[in-house]
């Protein structure tokens, strides 16, 4: 039989992704959301083939277009915004004007999914809430994202990822005990994780609709999504003790921690099972440890765990990190070198696997962004284009989808129902790019009155 890894190499071949089908082909998504929490849910559908219309206010745009690291724009855009918004159609319509609303309602007639993440009740106030849109299209799946959800006394509290990290208690677990060192989870994890939960809810709702024909309303609170992954509530209800900050270790594994090797690198090491403990003991040349701590629960008790932590730290400090990785491979216990941003972006394994993608974009040229951690063999996700300046797809969508003529579009522009960027970086195209020659932005298609 063919070698397993040759077989899987063919099965998952990243160069064949473009030829494979897309699972959400034909699904239309209306994305009213902003920053990260909502947009990432819509983007996950776009990654797997859905047609997503990102709606922004003309001349204003999504706040996260300006969400840049240390104030640095990249080609007049935010790199994070590219990641959260690739494969989307950028439509800039003023929802406050009746004509703008009319356009959106027309889009809703044919849409399958709507995503919003305003403060609770705001979408309703603007006439694009579930109660209104489900009148137009009863089969719609509507996802509302908020920090505290749509009902309950805290529902009007505004929020960011940070507040969800606080309200859920996630922050209370990360830091050094007995000091004033607390760390938040970096990179807006409190938005990304719940956003992915939102995508899961949407996929499940799409599955349900496929079977029953019924749409539905989804209320997702990002604090609840974070609470779902914390053990401290169950821990408290069983032991009557509060789980505190745990330090640089995993209290569910002993030994475990992030240690410094002889060559100054950082290595994460953990032992989850008795079998792995035996493996580590023999790799360390201290086989008697394995007989000393036979029972897993016993090993995890704070006094034992801290002794094993010291032993492991001592051992790692005397070895080169490559040596430790080799011993782990050979004996079978979890080890990984700590990877920083630069190493990850340039990691050969990730590039070969497709979890780091070197993408060539028509407007922004080369960009490197992550692929998924879950690879699908038959319907893989893909990147088609990066994010675009504010209102970039206006003309294209109005002509192909709404079948409007050039004159009608010009009238909408004049009435400021639709709009574009001004001179601020984040919403305008890169300096080198000749937008006048862009075939999508200046879409010349017939756009006549024929029905779609």
């Amino acid at each position, binding site marked *: 039989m063919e070698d*397993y*890894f040759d*077989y*899987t190499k063919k*099965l*998952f071949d990243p160069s064949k992704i473009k030829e494979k089908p897309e*699972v959400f082909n034909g699904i239309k998504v209306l994305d009213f959301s902003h920053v990260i929490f909502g947009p990432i849910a819509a983007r996950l559908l776009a990654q*797997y083939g859905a047609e997503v219309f990102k709606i922004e206010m003309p001349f204003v745009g999504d706040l996260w277009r300006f969400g840049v690291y*240390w104030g640095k724009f990249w080609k007049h855009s935010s790199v*994070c915004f590219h990641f959260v918004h690739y494969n989307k159609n950028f439509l800039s319509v003023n929802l406050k004007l009746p004509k703008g609303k009319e356009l959106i309602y027309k889009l809703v007639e044919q849409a399958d999914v709507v995503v919003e993440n305003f403060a609770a*009740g705001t979408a309703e*106030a603007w006439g694009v809430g579930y*109660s209104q849109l489900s009148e137009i299209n009863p089969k719609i799946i509507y996802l509302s994202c908020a920090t*505290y959800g749509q009902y309950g*006394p805290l529902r009007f509290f505004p929020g*960011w990822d*940070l507040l969800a*990290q606080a*309200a859920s208690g996630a922050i209370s677990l990360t830091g050094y005990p007995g000091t004033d*060192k607390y*760390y938040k989870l970096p*990179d807006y*994890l409190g938005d990304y994780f719940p956003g992915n*939960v939102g995508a899961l809810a949407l996929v*499940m709702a*799409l*599955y*349900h609709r496929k079977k029953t024909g019924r749409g539905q309303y989804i*209320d997702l609170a990002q604090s*609840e999504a974070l*609470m*779902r992954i914390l*053990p401290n509530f*169950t*821990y408290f209800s069983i032991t009557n003790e509060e*789980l505190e900050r*745990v330090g*640089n270790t995993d209290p*569910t*594994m002993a030994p475990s921690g*992030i240690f410094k090797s002889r060559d100054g690198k950082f290595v*994460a090491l*953990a032992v*989850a*099972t*008795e079998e792995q403990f035996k493996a580590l003991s023999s790799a360390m040349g201290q086989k008697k440890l394995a007989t000393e701590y036979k029972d897993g*629960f016993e090993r995890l008790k704070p006094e034992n765990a801290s002794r094993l932590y010291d032993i492991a730290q001592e051992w790692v400090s005397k070895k080169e990190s490559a040596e430790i990785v080799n011993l782990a491979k050979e004996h079978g216990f979890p080890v*990984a070198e*700590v990877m*920083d*941003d*630069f190493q*990850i972006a340039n990691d050969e394994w990730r590039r070969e696997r497709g979890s780091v993608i070197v993408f060539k974009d028509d407007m922004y040229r080369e*960009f490197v*962004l*992550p692929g998924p951690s*879950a690879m*699908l*063999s*038959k319907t893989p996700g893909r990147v088609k284009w990066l994010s675009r300046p504010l209102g970039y797809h206006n003309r294209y969508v109005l002509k192909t989808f709404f079948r409007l003529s050039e004159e009608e579009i010009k009238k909408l522009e004049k009435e400021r129902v639709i709009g574009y960027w001004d001179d601020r970086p984040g919403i305008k195209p890169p300096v080198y790019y000749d937008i006048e020659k862009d075939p999508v932005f200046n879409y010349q298609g017939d756009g006549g009155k024929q029905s779609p």
Partner: protein
Amino acid sequence: MSKGKEKEQVLVRYGISRREREKFLANMISPEGKPEVLDGVVVLDASYANFSGIIAASLFAEFGAEVIKIEPTEGDPSRKITPYGANVNGVGIPFIMEARNKRYLTLDVRTAKGRRDFEKLAAKADVLIETFPAGQMDSWGIGYRQLSQANPGLVYIAITPYGQYTDKAKEFRNLPDSDITSQAASGLAANIGDPDISPEPYNWPFRAGAWIGWYISGLEAALGGAMALVYKEATDEGQMIDVATADAYASLVGYPVFIGYTWEKARPRLGRHDFTLYPYGFWKSKDGIVAIAAPRDHDFRALLKILKLWKIEDDWRFTFDRITDILEQIEKLYGLIEAETVKYTSDELIKKALEYSIKSARSKWRGGGVPIIMKVPKPSEAMINPHWTIRKTFQEFDDKKLGKFVIPANFIKMSESPPRVKWISCDIGQDNDYIRKKYLSD
């Protein structure tokens, strides 16, 4: 404006009346009598000493799938992976927490007889989850390649540190998985911890205090699996899903990858500061710590007003004044804010921010800003907060073996087919008879 008119305006602002909206939403809470999305979908969970698989299986189970957890007679070692060894009759806390709506079958895939039964089960299953070394199941004759022959609709999810293909996957196939190694390999640990100038070991990379690596991997596995089920519904075709836990964090948030590329270097660790937004972090109050987010200029101005710090406004007015690239400078601002926050209790600070926000939201001038302050509750406090009680975020169970306990549940509210937790119990082999009768009798 008269009282009546004001009230009417509020109703207009919310499109429909508040009461109507609340009523609709309240109806939505209860899953009772509502269908389940994955009713009739059979999921086999053969994960071993790996919670990513168990978590993915939980998510399927919460959406209504029949999940069969397969473990050898001595039990999955995951049962013993628990904070400080805390357990109830030999079952660890995370294992209890994830024992949602599952069936427990003893079956040892390491034996030939076990594999024969496994094959029969897999022929009837829709989804299979496994976390063995890459190629192990295949060498036993029960990998995707073989099982998909008899059952082309099978969605086969494999979770390992470095995946199922590439040379590295082959080289590292026997390396077991853990949460901390997933965090380290995927760029999370490198971005938590104190800056360089702090003494060792505080300036080392740091582990996030929850199973971030494993929960991301479990969620992505379930998300991929759910998409594969949608595709299966349309085409009757299954597929293989390969999850690499060493990708978890970087693939989810993206930052390590595109910062590593556009900056051509790694970010330094920033301790309590954020790279993009400021102020955005945690400050001491008189009686604990509070989260403060006031990053937009008008939010920041509002924060200065409520903390009576207006005199420093001139120096820190714009976002660009508050970029965190000069550490000494931003530490200075941190200190200025902290000197004020420690004067108040957390509740006082929250009240101040809230009062200001309400005033500014009602004013016609929209530049008022929304400074947000929230305290960090202890689990015991969160569990009795009326907001979460009304939302039924925490669910209590009373199992004859496990006793009374609470789990965080109901984390997605859906009006038609909400996920739910129906029971929690996880005795080894508790459903052997039921499963054998239902799936293995022929």
